[in-house]
């Protein structure tokens, strides 16, 4: 029984790693840990906007990251993304504006583990091989038959088993406990476009520190390595499909490195003064986050409409009284009456709509509070 994963070290709060001129700092509230430039110490946490980033030691592996995906979006593109994001909401909070979101944007790299391993053992699976078969459609019309041949692609399943003695490289494994939620916020990345880690490409971005050390991420790594092994076995068997793949293997010479993925975060405050985090995938430009409507503004608009409606109704009443003296005014009174009534009913919409809209926003992905 061999130890598979090297232990993490404690990185001192003043220690700079990987020539990045960044030091460990953690959020006082959500406890996420980042490697940040000194100038950022004391600013709000980009992922919760509730706590502050303060220097602290970090428990992490000192090995330099292996790969990164650089940011691909310029300021203009970000501005357009925010404008599109904001424009979809009718009655929005004062703070929910594209220019504000742009000014509050922070670049963050978040981590994945890249695992290399020797895999040796035996496997079995059902291998699916495509084959083509003929089938026929016959049609009879006007006393004559017409035959139409169709070629269908079907799958023949056959058992295959064997031994594997191979090396898998760069199997991606979650490095954050909230990996799934993070991925739901950012959307997918094209991981095959990873570049070697280069501190010069970091810019002012924060580097998020893994909170799943290799020893805790190992149970998540094995299925990924198995999946990789399954693909290798599928290729070895010249199969087009596989199912029921089972592997019994030894994993040796494990190597864990980090892969950093780019994302932008920003925020706006809603009616209740809560910071709502918005995330943009730094590669694809996908934007996710709650788009809250303002109930307060909705009620304000509804109130104004109600007052105008009341004025119209009062004018209608006054007009009705005047009809006793000048009968043609009755028509104007009716018109005012209808306008007042219509506006009064329409006032319900801005009062109710924000609540309905916000309820729907609860279903979408959002940055979850941590611990």
């Amino acid at each position: 029984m061999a130890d598979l994963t090297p232990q993490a070290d404690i990185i001192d709060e003043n220690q700079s790693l990987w020539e990045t001129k960044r030091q460990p700092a953690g959020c006082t509230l959500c406890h996420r840990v980042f490697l940040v430039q000194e100038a950022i110490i004391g600013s709000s946490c980009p992922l919760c906007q509730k706590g502050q980033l303060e220097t602290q030691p970090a428990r992490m592996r000192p090995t330099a990251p292996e790969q990164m995906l650089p940011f691909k979006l310029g300021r203009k593109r970000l501005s357009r993304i925010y404008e599109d994001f904001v424009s979809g909401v009718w009655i929005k909070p004062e703070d929910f504006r594209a220019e504000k979101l742009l000014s509050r944007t922070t670049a963050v790299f978040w981590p994945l583990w890249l695992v290399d391993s020797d895999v040796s053992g035996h496997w079995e699976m059902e291998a699916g091989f495509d084959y083509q078969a003929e089938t026929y459609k016959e049609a009879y019309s006007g006393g004559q038959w017409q035959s139409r041949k169709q070629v269908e692609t079907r799958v023949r399943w056959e058992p295959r088993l064997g031994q594997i003695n191979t090396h898998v490289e760069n199997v991606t494994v979650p490095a954050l406990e909230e990996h799934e939620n993070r991925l739901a916020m950012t959307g997918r990345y094209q991981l095959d476009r990873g570049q070697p880690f280069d501190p010069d490409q970091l810019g002012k971005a924060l580097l998020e520190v893994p909170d799943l050390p290799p020893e805790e991420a190992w149970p998540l790594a094995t299925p990924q390595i198995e999946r990789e092994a399954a693909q290798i076995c599928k290729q070895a068997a010249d199969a087009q499909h596989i199912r029921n793949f089972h592997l019994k293997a030894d994993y040796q010479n494990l190597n864990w490195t980090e892969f950093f993925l780019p994302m932008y975060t920003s925020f706006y405050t809603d009616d209740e003064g809560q910071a709502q985090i918005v995330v943009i995938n730094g590669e694809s430009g996908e934007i996710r986050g709650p788009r809250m409507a303002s109930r307060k503004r909705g009620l304000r608009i509804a109130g104004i409409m109600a007052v105008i409606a009341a004025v119209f109704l009062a004018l209608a009443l006054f007009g009705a009284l005047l009809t006793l003296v000048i009968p043609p005014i009755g028509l104007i009174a009716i018109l005012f009456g209808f306008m007042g009534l219509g506006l009064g009913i329409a006032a319900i919409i801005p009062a109710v709509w924000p609540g309905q809209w916000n309820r729907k926003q609860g279903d979408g992905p959002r940055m979850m509070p941590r611990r």
Partner: protein
Amino acid sequence: MPTNQSHSQPWSPPEQFVLVESSVPGVMVYAPQPETTKSDRAKSFACPNCGANITYDVSAGGVACEYCGHIAPVKSVHVGRNAEDFEFTLETLSQSNRGWGTQRQILHCDSCGSDLSISESTLTTTCLFCASNKVNVITSLEETLRPRFLIPFTVTRDQTQKIASQWLGKGWYHPDELARNAILRKFVGIYLPFWTFDTQVDARWRAQVGYEKTERHYNAREKRWVTRTRIDWRWENGKTHLNIDDFLVSGSHQRHISQLILKRLYPYDMNGLKTYQPDYLAGWQAQAYEVTLTDAWASAKKAIREKAKTACHRDIPTHHVRNFSMSADFRDESWRYILLPVYLAAYKYDNQVYQVMLNGQTGAIAGQKPIAWWKIWLAIAAMLAPGTLLGLIGLPLLLVGGVGIIAIVLGIILFVLGIIFSFILYNKARESEAK
């Protein structure tokens, strides 16, 4: 703390798995052993006791030596209708079209060491030098195109003579002395190739269907009520489903085996199918397919779609149909290549040679039979005579009064009936002689 689990103990693949080529270095791939077995190789049959030639004995149900009496049962599995069938893969179809590859093939006799040249469709032979029986089915390029199932002979050679004699004696329009004078040659048992097809057919039809409607109206000119029948045409549609199971198509060419006679031997009971074992063919003749799978399926398809058409027509409640159109979608099509037992014989009568076939499973017999044409003509004359005579009698009676017309009408009816029966009889007689 994650640790590795040791799986480094020696591993060996299960039995019946063989190492196959792997496309990735470092990965060994094992696959189930292909089904090619010893029994598919050319096999010689000699008695393990006395070394004499042995053959499959129908009554013993095994391979028997007629010299020392040694009997070995055939190790075959009864599969019946559950016998494996195959899909119409493009691979198989193209393989089937290529046939057996060579016109002649060399079969090595491992009893005496000589090389025998045999035709491509011959599955069994007897060595010219040592007289040992051989069974050979390895000539097909693809595994599935070798016979995998067969129905063994259940009718013995002794029974064939009795059945044939009885059959020759049947039928009044054959020469009376046929059963006595026919020189019947020995029946030769042969396994003939057949394709069987299974398919599901979903048929949809659309047609104008006519419904007869009787109505009465007053004819002012004739001043009477008239009843007339008219047809109401309506567009209708429907669907029907056909389950085709073991549709049989012969794999032999017409020039070798009369398909007309062969079809009269049907049906074979497919519940009798057994897995192929060369032992069944020992000492018997066997033929490989000459009609390719593609051609056999094409002819089966034609017949099946006509069946579907008939089924659609059966769905229509009246016989008034016009503008009929339909579609038939085939699905789950599959095929089997099997060998079925047939006895072939010929007999000589009046210097003419006639073919006879006998179903080796059921004992059904069919074949050519000479016709005593004078009997046929006499019978036809007898059938036409009543009508003609009545008509002739009716003519002079016309002069007497209304009685004549009745005789003439009856005469015509009888004459028409006579023609119909004569036609049937004539056709039957022609068929009896047809090849």
